[in-house]
């Protein structure tokens, strides 16, 4: 049933000159699913994500979003209905927090009053104090607050799909953990479909329903964490070894703490 798929990549290829950034990748993401894309730097994760909302165009294969071939959809309209959280926040430095959050509704021509209400809703949703943050410029925010604004901006036009490119990568571990949890809650509450890129397997395991592993533009493996641990691929097992070792070490260092 293709209508149940939020995003579907079929034999998708993207080349930059002689470099194949994404090669022959097929991946289905069901509605309501939270998929993490994991892989080393330069493995093609960002490229794969940007293909979905046509920030770049594929050289081969087909991509469908909610059943429609993206080639048949106006790219601007496509981007307005898919939330995108950028790696470094991507907040516009000359716009206030409220204007950043309200940008996509504004582009969609929603009335100003409705946008004001929506912005307040979203600030609450991402747990930022309204009065204190609305009118600030992004430079006056901490890294964690900025990413919360980034998430709020992605959700502003009530998208059903959210793409996130290493959203919490640059944050300190505590903030990162909190934000990850908060987002996971939102994902469930709003019934979103989320594709999140991370290079941190631990984060992927903790947040995602399914994990896709990329290496050199290829999709090496995909599945639930349990399925992946049965993989025979050396690289996949190598990636899983880090969280395992962390768990073991934590267990010896923090006896009876029940942290997990």
């Amino acid at each position, binding site marked *: 049933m293709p209508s149940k798929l939020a995003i579907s990549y079929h034999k998708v290829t993207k080349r930059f000159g002689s470099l194949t950034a994404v090669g022959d990748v097929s991946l289905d993401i069901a509605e309501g699913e939270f998929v993490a894309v994991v892989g080393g730097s330069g493995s093609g994760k960002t490229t794969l994500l940007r293909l979905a909302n046509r920030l770049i165009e594929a050289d081969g294969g087909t991509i469908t979003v909610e059943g429609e071939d993206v080639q048949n959809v106006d790219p601007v309209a496509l981007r307005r209905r898919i939330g995108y959280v950028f790696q470094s926040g*991507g907040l516009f430095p000359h716009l206030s927090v409220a204007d950043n959050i309200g940008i996509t509704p504004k582009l969609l021509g929603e009335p100003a009053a409705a946008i004001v209400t929506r912005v307040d809703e979203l600030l609450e949703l991402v747990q930022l104090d309204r009065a204190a943050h609305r009118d600030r410029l992004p430079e006056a925010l901490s890294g964690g607050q900025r990413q919360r604004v980034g998430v709020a901006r992605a959700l502003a036009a009530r998208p059903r799909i959210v793409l996130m490119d290493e959203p919490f990568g640059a944050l300190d571990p505590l903030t990162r953990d909190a934000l990850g949890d908060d987002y996971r809650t939102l994902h469930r509450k709003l019934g979103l479909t989320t594709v999140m890129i991370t290079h941190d397997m631990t984060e992927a395991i903790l947040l995602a329903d399914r994990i896709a592993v990329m290496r050199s533009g290829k999709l090496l493996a995909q599945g639930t964490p349990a399925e992946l641990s049965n993989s025979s691929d050396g690289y996949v097992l190598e990636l899983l070894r880090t969280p395992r070792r962390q768990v073991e070490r934590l267990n010896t260092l923090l006896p009876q703490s029940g942290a997990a």
Partner: protein
Amino acid sequence: MSLFTDPRWGEALAHLPDYLGNHVRVSLAALALGLAVSLPLAILTRNRPAPRGILLAFASIVQTVPGLALLALFYPLLLLAASVTLAWFGLSFSAFGFLPAMLALALYSMLPVLRNGITGLNGIDPALIEAAKGVGMTARQSLLMVELPLALPVMMAGIRTAAVWVIGTATLSTPIGQTSLGNYIFAGLQTQNWVFVLFGCLASALLALAVDQLLGLIEGGLRQRNRARAGLGAVGIAALVAATLVPTMGRSSSGYVVGAKTFAEQYVLSALTRDRLQAAGLSASARSGLGSSVIFEALKAGDIDLYIDYSGTLWTNQLHRSDIKPRAELVAELKTALAKDNITLLGELGFENAYALVMPKKRAEALGIRTIADLSAHASTLSIAGDYEFFSRPEWAALQKAYGLQFRAQRQMQPDFMYAAVASGEVDVIAGYTSDGLIAKYDLVTLDDPKHAIPPYDAILLLAPKRAGDERLKTALQPLLGKIDIATMREANLRASGNDANSSPDAVARWLWGKIKQ
């Protein structure tokens, strides 16, 4: 007399509405045109390295052309364009004054606007442009909502630089017939009226500063999204334009315009001519400081109504003749030739402003030198000085050929210093100008030219084609013809070179009229 009680400040102030008004109008029009061209070009080429490179190279080259030369180049260019449009579309426009000045200044403003525009737009973090696309902006929305606002500070810095350049360079538009604050500076330099020079420089500096501050206000307002501040700046600029429009709009432009080139004698004679016309009940104004290549064309095109030129100048520059005729014959032939262009050579004023070889009177008498022929026998032991162009002019070649002149040394000098140099014996002979007042002051003598190697340079009154049948004008000018002898003109020029209130062209013109009336 103290600096501040000098009546020339008052005289300068009286010209301010006219000069400042014209200066503001041409500068802001040029800036507006420059921005209207440069900003879209900067936006269009921001992601295209090849055209961007060509554009920046072009703008840089324009910038290396000295302002004065750029302005002067636009005049013949527009004359050509005007003759083409006249021939093809029956459309004629004035290539004089406002248009060439505005176009040249607009071109001049392009480099800082382009360079800062491109730098500002290219300096934006690509991640932000990506984010603009990602949140669903079209290319146009990204430009208007993200790229331009982010590039604004750098772009505005370029616009402010351009504004200051244009306002400063606009002072150089005087010689191509655009009234500007440069009128003070050109007139002041030529007539040694330092009050005027100072006034002109101060006024243009203050204007540049004011416009820069107002643009700064607009920039700050836009950046802080403070409408009131940006509005205040915009209102300031608008008020500046309005304030400079009001006093000069009502002025009638139907009067006679008397042209003058950029040296003291011309300032005096144009003031004298203007006074005569006004005395005859005609409305008249002087348009001074015009370049010598511009002024004749301006007369021909009717942009000015009359001016005084010199027979030898037109003989060489307009008729392209290199043969030499006696004074009266040359004027007669010139008159016929100019009549073909419908230009009236009304008559001679009576004196000549020609090149002449000049020595201290005592020295010439001691050596027994009266003529250039006498000089040639002594030349090999003597040194000569001339202005920057003399030794490359046909007069010098003709002199050398006719008299076999061979000097021990030849030097180039600033004309103002030549006379003092020959008086003090630093050089033995100079190539001076026959009507220069300093000849009398330093007790110098001009040597006769028995072989007529130097063409005559009679001062002649010329009328524009549209004034050919204007009998009232001719009658008003009649009293000047043949009435100014060389001694009188020398004294007038000497007075004009003084540095006090009695030395302004207007004052000297009144004195000169007193002498003529007698």
